[in-house]
């Protein structure tokens, strides 16, 4: 059965299932979402208007038994940044859509009335249904209700109240195997889904399997690939401590943004660290290891229980913990976990919202360190859509404008995550040049600058940083198209068997003969497609800059400033 494009027009409430155009056949994940957005969306359009589209695509290897291949990509024009956007997550949806033969879902148009809808997708249909019961409800209620309406085997893609209210930090949630949620977090794509009045998409389970052109070669390649992942010591540490193992090493390096980016070290780092989190999880009988999708062999997620041993949150990531922790000076993991849970339920990006809280603290809205007040604001202001809640829910830039704060850590209006670009300079190049606003995952130079993976580059020196960021951004665009989790990169950068095995799997899946150079070309082509969209939307090289406070305020303990010139940054695009 050939893969199909499932199209939904929400203006006239029609659907269609189309053959995949030849140009799109070799694409998946981010490569496909960005290609469709670039082909079909007017770059100058309003992101929350009828001309924007929401595109949902499993990766090229999703639905196969390839280890760690369960990422789903969602794309559109971002209401937060105004750029093209792709956000990806684990959960069950990517594998389920791929098995149904769904190459992508394209949602277009604008509803004519006030009514809300859900979509239901099977192997030969996509239907639009009126929805009223779940309007105003959080993601956990959606999962519970849809499960009781259908069964627990259905996949769910949903938005919470933040998406309904079109808050610019609204995310899109993906149900995971334990009926919790993972998030396509960044850039406000939940608001795009909300603008189209779609509360959730349910995906029917199937026994179908994706077609593999050469099963024997695929199995052999997956065995080698899985071995590379499992043998990698960083994979093993991720399983034990989660990504939050980074708090202490980034703090030690002097690059942990603290108190709204005014220091590079946080006194309370030990209390929010991966080591403390691991001990807490074990003591409360949670699970240090947990997979967000079937087939993940790294298992960086976890089940974090509250003081009474009851489930509180999972997928408790370094960036969220840093943002609500060090950046807001909250040194209590339970407050951070409560906030993480609330943000998952409201359906709002935990990086953007937490950095927005840090800016709000500087603006005098609440005190630094007041984790209880953060949780109150999330519950009583953001979730209900009060005026303050909407200002915070529209991100760090929104809070800065509303409260007259100039130290606002954003690029293209998207919050800078957990690594200060003054003392870890390569990541600053990624923040500045990313096609999607500040985002560490676009080109994770931390691996080389701090962790010593894929070589070494001095984080405090400018030398080699543009090239490092460029190479990683190109590789990441390709990886984001395969459906692979980005954490395969640690093995890929240091184990010579990993990347060839991944390419072998792609070739065996589709009966093609890609080389490593082809994969690099794919990554370059995706970046150029995205960059061209942004230029047509009105962005120039002047938008590829960090906020001026980074150049003016030295960061302790190294007392360094951001010192790349615009001309130096612009060389990023010389390829």
């Amino acid at each position, binding site marked *: 059965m050939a893969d199909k494009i499932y199209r939904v027009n929400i203006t006239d409430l029609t659907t269609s299932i189309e053959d995949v155009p030849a140009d799109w056949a070799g694409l998946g994940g981010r490569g496909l979402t960005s290609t469709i957005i670039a082909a079909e969306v007017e770059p100058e359009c309003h992101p929350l208007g009828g001309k924007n589209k929401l595109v949902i695509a499993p990766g090229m290897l999703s639905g196969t038994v390839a280890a760690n291949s369960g990422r789903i990509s969602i794309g559109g024009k971002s209401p937060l940044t105004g750029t093209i956007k792709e956000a990806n997550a684990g959960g069950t949806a990517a594998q389920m859509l791929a098995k149904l033969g769904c190459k992508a879902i394209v949602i277009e148009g604008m509803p004519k009335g006030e009514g809300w809808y859900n979509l239901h997708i099977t192997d030969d249909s996509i239907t639009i249904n009126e929805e009223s019961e779940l309007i105003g409800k959080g993601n956990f209620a959606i999962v519970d209700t849809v499960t009781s309406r259908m069964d627990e085997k259905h996949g769910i893609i949903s938005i919470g109240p933040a998406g309904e209210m079109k808050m610019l930090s609204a995310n899109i949630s993906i149900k995971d195997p334990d009926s919790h949620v993972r998030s396509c977090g960044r850039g406000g794509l939940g608001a795009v889904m909300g603008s189209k009045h779609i509360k959730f998409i349910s995906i029917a389970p199937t026994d179908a399997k994706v077609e593999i052109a050469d099963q024997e070669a695929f199995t052999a390649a997956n065995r080698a690939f899985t071995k590379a992942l499992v043998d990698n*010591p*960083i994979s093993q*540490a*991720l399983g*034990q*401590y*989660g*990504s*939050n*193992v*980074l708090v*202490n*090493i980034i703090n*030690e*390096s*002097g690059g942990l943004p603290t108190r709204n980016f005014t220091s590079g070290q946080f006194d309370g780092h*030990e209390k929010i660290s*991966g*080591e403390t989190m691991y001990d807490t999880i074990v003591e409360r009988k949670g699970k240090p290891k947990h997979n967000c999708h079937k087939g993940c062999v790294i298992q*960086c997620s976890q089940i974090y229980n509250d003081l009474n041993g009851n489930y509180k949150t999972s997928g408790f990531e*370094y*960036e969220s913990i840093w943002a609500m922790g060090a950046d807001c000076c909250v040194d209590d993991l339970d407050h951070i976990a409560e906030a993480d849970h609330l943000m998952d339920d409201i359906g709002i990006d935990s990086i953007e919202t937490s950095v927005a809280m840090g800016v709000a603290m500087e603006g005098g809205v609440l005190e630094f360190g007041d984790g209880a007040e953060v949780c109150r604001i999330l519950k009583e202001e953001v979730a209900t859509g009060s005026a303050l809640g909407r200002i915070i829910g529209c991100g760090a830039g929104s809070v800065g404008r509303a409260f007259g704060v100039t130290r606002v850590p954003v690029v293209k209006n998207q919050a800078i995550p957990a690594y200060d670009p003054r003392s870890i300079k390569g990541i600053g190049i990624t923040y500045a040049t990313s096609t999607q606003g500040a985002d*560490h*995952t676009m080109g*994770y130079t*931390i*691996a080389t600058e*701090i*962790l*010593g*993976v894929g070589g*070494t580059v*001095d*984080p*405090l020196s400018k030398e080699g940083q543009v090239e490092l960021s460029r190479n990683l951004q190109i590789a990441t665009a390709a990886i984001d198209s395969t459906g692979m989790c*980005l*954490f395969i990169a*640690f093995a890929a950068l240091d184990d010579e068997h990993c990347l060839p095995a991944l390419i072998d799997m792609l070739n065996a899946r589709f009966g093609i003969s890609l080389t490593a150079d082809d994969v690099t070309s794919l990554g370059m082509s995706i970046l150029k497609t995205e960059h061209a969209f942004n230029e047509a939307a009105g962005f120039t090289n002047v938008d590829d800059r960090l906020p001026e406070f980074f150049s003016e305020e030295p960061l302790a*303990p*190294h007392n360094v400033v951001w010192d790349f010139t615009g001309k130096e940054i612009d060389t990023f695009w010389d390829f």
Partner: protein
Amino acid sequence: MEITVKLFAYFRDGRFIEAASNVSEDTTPQQVITSLDIDLDDVGVIMVNHRHAALDYQLKPADILAIFPKIGGG
């Protein structure tokens, strides 16, 4: 001379989080690591005073030596 040694992740198991240590002049991180019975192959990153340092770096009085296994995230 006295230095501070910090350990991270599973290097802490059965050892310590942070300790003052009296070492002879010109001691290197490699010597400290070996004295703690940590396998050199398990070491991912060494920092001295918040800067990355090599195994043969010559430690000075009051240095802060941080020793990490191979870890990652993001």
